[in-house]
């Protein structure tokens, strides 16, 4: 290779010789063949390779960007870059009524929408001081929906986790099983995700007729699917060698980094918000909190499968309670907080029932005024702040709601478990292989919709 002559006028070709791109003073190196290690040693003294994994990468669960400094196949430093899915949901909630807030927060962690709704509504009810006035049936429906959602979320975690290691069957099996649960959600809320079903004061509407039988008839097949997943994964020698001893985060590390959920429990601590700070009547349900001590990715898979079985156990108890409370209210009696509309299926899909319209338009001016005011303004919430957490599939989800006494949240902050847990990526990945990064991140199960909000 010869050095380009600098006095030659710039070529008409768009791609000139590479050396012309650099001004004087920039060191250039010429090499023709040879070993890259030797060239690099000669040129910069050391070899330092930083690899960007993501944000567009199928194994990053969305738009997570991992910056890995690697030495051969060994990861020497790992850092996360997030924010690619930031949509300003918290800011938007400050411009909507308290009731409309559920429509926004349900879109944060899109694999576990009902947990955001429940945490936000429980926080709002705390501010209103009506926690005890929420009807029992509403609490049972909330628990039922959350536990089904937990199973659905864990199934995606296990399925995509398997897919990332090349086991497509695990993924198809996980998604097939999840589909059954989404069908139940659709029957109750009308939607497969983004439900906005749990509302301050209760739930939007009662479960449809025959729902409990539907769920009951589905439980055996769900158990079968989870059993098949377990059979596919837990004794598989390739699976075990990829996961065991990988992504280790011990107990003190987990506490220092605020890591909760299955990752904390895989290190041996049985901390579960459902047991430690019960909400929605969780203290009345019989279930166990599985733990492990291996603190590695394999232990987290085992725990997630165990948690699915425990959730189904809670679901069964919920179904019995639903059968005992048929016809009971699912929204607080206070009409100022309960959404004032009386919905019925009309010719254009859904709207206020004709009886309700006839009543407020024809017989009661007061009712009409109140209806109008409550629908346009929403209800006021006394000034103050509240902190409510729920046990999310990925850890402890916290909601900090602040009211200035108005009809909109003054501030709604969500402490998403995935956001916090991603801080552990460097601890879990550094010193391991590049291939272990995929496994370690999958064991944290981050959902970037929740991370970035």
């Amino acid at each position, binding site marked *: 290779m010869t050095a380009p002559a600098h006095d030659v006028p710039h070529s008409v070709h768009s791609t000139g010789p590479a050396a012309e791109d650099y001004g004087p003073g920039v060191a250039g190196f010429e090499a023709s063949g040879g070993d890259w290690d030797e060239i690099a040693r000669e040129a910069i003294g050391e070899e330092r390779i930083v690899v960007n994994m993501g944000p567009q990468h199928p194994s990053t669960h969305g738009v997570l960007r991992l910056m890995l400094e690697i030495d051969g196949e060994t990861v020497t430093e790992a850092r996360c870059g997030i924010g690619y899915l930031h949509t300003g949901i918290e800011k938007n909630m400050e411009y909507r009524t308290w009731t409309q807030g559920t429509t926004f927060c349900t879109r944060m962690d899109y694999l576990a929408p009902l947990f955001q709704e429940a945490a936000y509504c429980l926080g709002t009810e705390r501010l209103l001081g009506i926690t005890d006035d929420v009807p029992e049936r509403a609490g049972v429906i909330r628990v039922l929906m959350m536990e089904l959602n937990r199973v659905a979320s864990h199934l995606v975690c296990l399925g995509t986790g398997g897919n990332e290691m090349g086991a497509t069957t695990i993924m198809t099996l996980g998604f097939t099983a999840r589909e059954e649960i989404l069908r139940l959600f659709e029957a109750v809320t009308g939607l497969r995700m983004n439900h906005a079903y749990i509302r301050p004061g209760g739930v939007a509407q009662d479960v449809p007729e025959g729902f409990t039988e539907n769920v009951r008839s589905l439980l055996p097949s769900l158990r079968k699917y989870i059993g098949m997943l377990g059979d596919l994964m837990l004794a598989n020698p390739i699976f075990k060698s990829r996961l065991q001893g990988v992504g280790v985060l011990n107990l003190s590390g987990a506490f220092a*980094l605020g890591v909760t959920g299955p990752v904390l429990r895989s290190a041996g601590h049985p901390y579960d918000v459902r047991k430690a700070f019960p909400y929605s009547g969780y203290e009345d349900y019989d279930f166990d909190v599985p733990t492990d001590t291996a603190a590695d990715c394999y232990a987290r898979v085992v725990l997630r499968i165990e948690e699915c079985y425990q959730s189904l156990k809670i679901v069964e108890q919920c179904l019995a309670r639903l059968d005992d409370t048929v016809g009971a209210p699912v929204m607080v009696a206070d009409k100022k907080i309960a959404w004032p509309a009386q919905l019925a299926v009309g010719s254009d899909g859904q709207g206020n029932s004709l009886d309700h319209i006839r009543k407020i338009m024809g017989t009661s001016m007061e009712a009409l005024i109140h209806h109008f005011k409550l629908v346009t303004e929403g209800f006021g919430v006394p000034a*103050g702040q509240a902190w409510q957490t729920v046990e999310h599939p990925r850890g402890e989800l916290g909601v900090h709601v602040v009211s200035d006494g108005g009809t909109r949240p003054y501030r709604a902050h969500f*402490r998403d478990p995935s956001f916090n847990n991603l801080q552990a990526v460097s601890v879990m990945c550094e010193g391991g292989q590049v291939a272990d990064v995929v496994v370690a991140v999958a064991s944290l199960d981050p959902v970037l919709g929740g991370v970035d909000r």
Partner: protein
Amino acid sequence: MSEHSGEVERRQQGPTAEVVRETTGMFGVQGTGDTSGYGGLTRTVTMPAAASRPYGGWFDEVVDVLAEVLGEAGVSFADAVERVVITDPRRTAEGEGPSRDAEMTLYVAREHLMAVCRALRDDQDLRFELSLGVSGVHYPDDVGRELHAVYHLTSVTHGRRLRLEVTCPDDDPHLPSTTTVYPANDWHERETWDFFGIVFEGHPALARIEMPDDWPGHPQRKDYPLGGIPVEYKGATVPPPNVRREYS
């Protein structure tokens, strides 16, 4: 312990409710267009006021132990904790014990935040070992204390929850970083810097986390507009949410 309790009581006597905002009129109408009849109405909205002893439940114990531990470290409780607030909307009768939803907030002076955090984490009777992050709140009308950082602590050992609230003025938005005590707060402080512009002194890498690195402004502040464009729907034009009428 007794002399510290005395300090605690003295501390609570001043009028110490946080002003959120002053409102005039109703329905968001101002000036000559206001025919609502509410034009002369002025209201001051405040956050719940400082609580008085006994707080009830475990709250007294935590405050007493904290005062004692801080005293041993040479920090006066009265200087460190400006006010103790119990939020309990469900408690109706005076003298009744706190309900299950009761929450305690300690308003901590920023220069003593580290000492308070260390005491809360390390003392065996406090043991708030799990930090669930930091969230910011912007109160533009709370003059001299516009920016608040709220820390959510959990004691897994004792099954308790506690909230610390630290304030700083808009023209000096500096708070100490708690990452040396609670490493979990790393990203949460970055988020609070990103959204509110609070500078956490001593943070290992206080960079923006959600917004792009070159983003101007701090989006969660109240003076930062939401933005949005009008949307046409079935012939009518729906204004963007930030210019719709406010009722509160």
